[in-house]
C-alpha cells in the first residue's frame, strides 16, 4: 500500500507526470489505432449487411463506441473533478480539465454520425427526440467546461470552476442512458446488454463493435495523457524542468 501511495505521490509531481505521460501516450494511441483499424475493417467489409437497414447500419461501428465513450468520459471527468474539489489534488484538476475536449470530440462524432445515419433510416437529419436532445445537452456541457476553464484568468480558480460544472453536469449522463426507456423515443432501445449477456446482436456482427469500443477507450487514455501533459507544461513553464525540456527539444 505504501509503495502505491509513493507511486501516486511521485507521479503527481509535475516533472514525473511529464515523463509518465510521454512514456505511455504513444502506447495508448498505438493500441487505439490498431484496434480501430481492425474493428473498422471488420465492420465495413467482414460482417454481413443488416436485413432491415441494409449497408447503412455499418455506421454504428463508429457511432455506438463514440456515444459510449462520450458518456464514460463524462463520468470519469466527474470522478476526477470530485477528487480534485474534495482533496484539492492538482493532478486530478488537470485530468478533469483535459478530459473535456476528448469527451466533446466523441459527443460531436456521436451527433454527426447519428445524423448521417438518421437521414436514410428515419428520413430526417435531426429530430428533437429525448436521446438526441440529451446527447446535444451533453455536448454543450462539455463545451461549457472548456469555456469556463478558458474564461477565468487564475488557473487554479478556473480549474475548480470547470470541475464544479463537470460535477453538476454528470446528472445528464443517466438522462442520456435511460431516455429511451423513460420517454417515447424515435431512437431504438438497447441492442447490446453487456451485464445480462443477452445481446440481440449476433456475435458475427458484434466483434468489430467490441474492438472499436476498446479502441475508443485507449484513444481517450492517449488523448487524456497528451492534453494533461500540455496543461502541466503550461502551468509549470517557469520551472527549471520545463526550461530544461524546452532546451532539450531544440
Amino acid at each position, binding site marked *: 500500500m505504501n509503495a502505491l501511495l509513493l507511486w501516486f505521490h511521485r507521479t503527481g509531481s509535475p516533472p514525473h507526470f511529464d515523463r509518465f505521460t510521454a512514456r505511455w501516450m504513444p502506447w495508448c494511441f498505438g493500441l487505439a489505432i490498431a484496434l480501430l483499424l481492425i474493428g473498422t475493417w471488420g465492420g465495413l467489409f467482414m460482417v454481413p449487411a443488416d436485413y432491415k437497414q*441494409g449497408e*447503412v447500419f455499418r*455506421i454504428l461501428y*463508429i457511432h455506438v463506441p463514440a456515444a459510449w465513450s462520450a458518456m464514460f468520459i463524462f463520468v470519469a471527468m466527474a470522478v476526477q473533478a470530485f477528487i480534485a474539489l474534495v482533496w484539492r489534488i492538482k493532478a486530478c484538476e488537470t485530468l478533469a480539465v483535459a478530459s473535456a*475536449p476528448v469527451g466533446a470530440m466523441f459527443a460531436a462524432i456521436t451527433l454527426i454520425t447519428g445524423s*448521417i445515419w438518421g437521414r436514410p433510416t428515419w428520413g430526417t437529419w435531426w429530430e428533437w427526440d429525448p436521446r438526441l436532445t440529451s446527447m446535444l445537452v451533453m455536448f454543450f456541457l462539455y463545451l461549457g467546461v472548456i469555456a469556463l476553464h478558458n474564461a477565468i484568468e487564475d488557473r487554479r480558480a478556473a480549474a475548480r470552476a470547470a470541475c464544479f460544472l463537470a460535477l453538476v453536469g454528470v446528472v445528464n449522463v443517466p438522462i442520456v442512458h435511460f431516455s429511451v426507456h423513460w420517454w417515447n423515443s424515435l431512437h431504438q432501445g438497447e441492442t447490446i446488454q453487456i451485464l445480462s449477456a443477452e445481446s440481440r446482436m449476433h456475435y458475427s456482427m458484434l466483434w468489430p463493435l467490441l474492438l472499436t469500443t476498446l479502441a475508443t477507450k485507449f484513444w481517450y487514455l492517449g488523448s487524456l495523457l497528451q492534453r494533461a*501533459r*500540455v496543461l502541466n507544461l503550461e502551468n509549470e513553464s517557469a520551472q527549471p524542468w520545463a526550461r530544461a*525540456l*524546452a532546451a532539450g527539444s531544440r
Partner: protein
Amino acid sequence: MEHLHPWFIAAAFGVSAVLLVADAVLPRIKFQSILRGILLRDRRPSNPERPAP
C-alpha cells in the same frame, strides 16, 4: 436511397477520422508552441534568469 448508402457510410467514417486526427495533432502543436515560447523567453536579454553565454 439505398444506392447512396456507401456515401453516407463514407461521410460518417470520414468525419470521424478528421475529428480523431485533429484531436491527436492539435495538442501536439500546442505543446511544441509552449516549448518554443519557453525557449524565446529564456533567450530574451531582459530575462534575469537567462543562462550566462
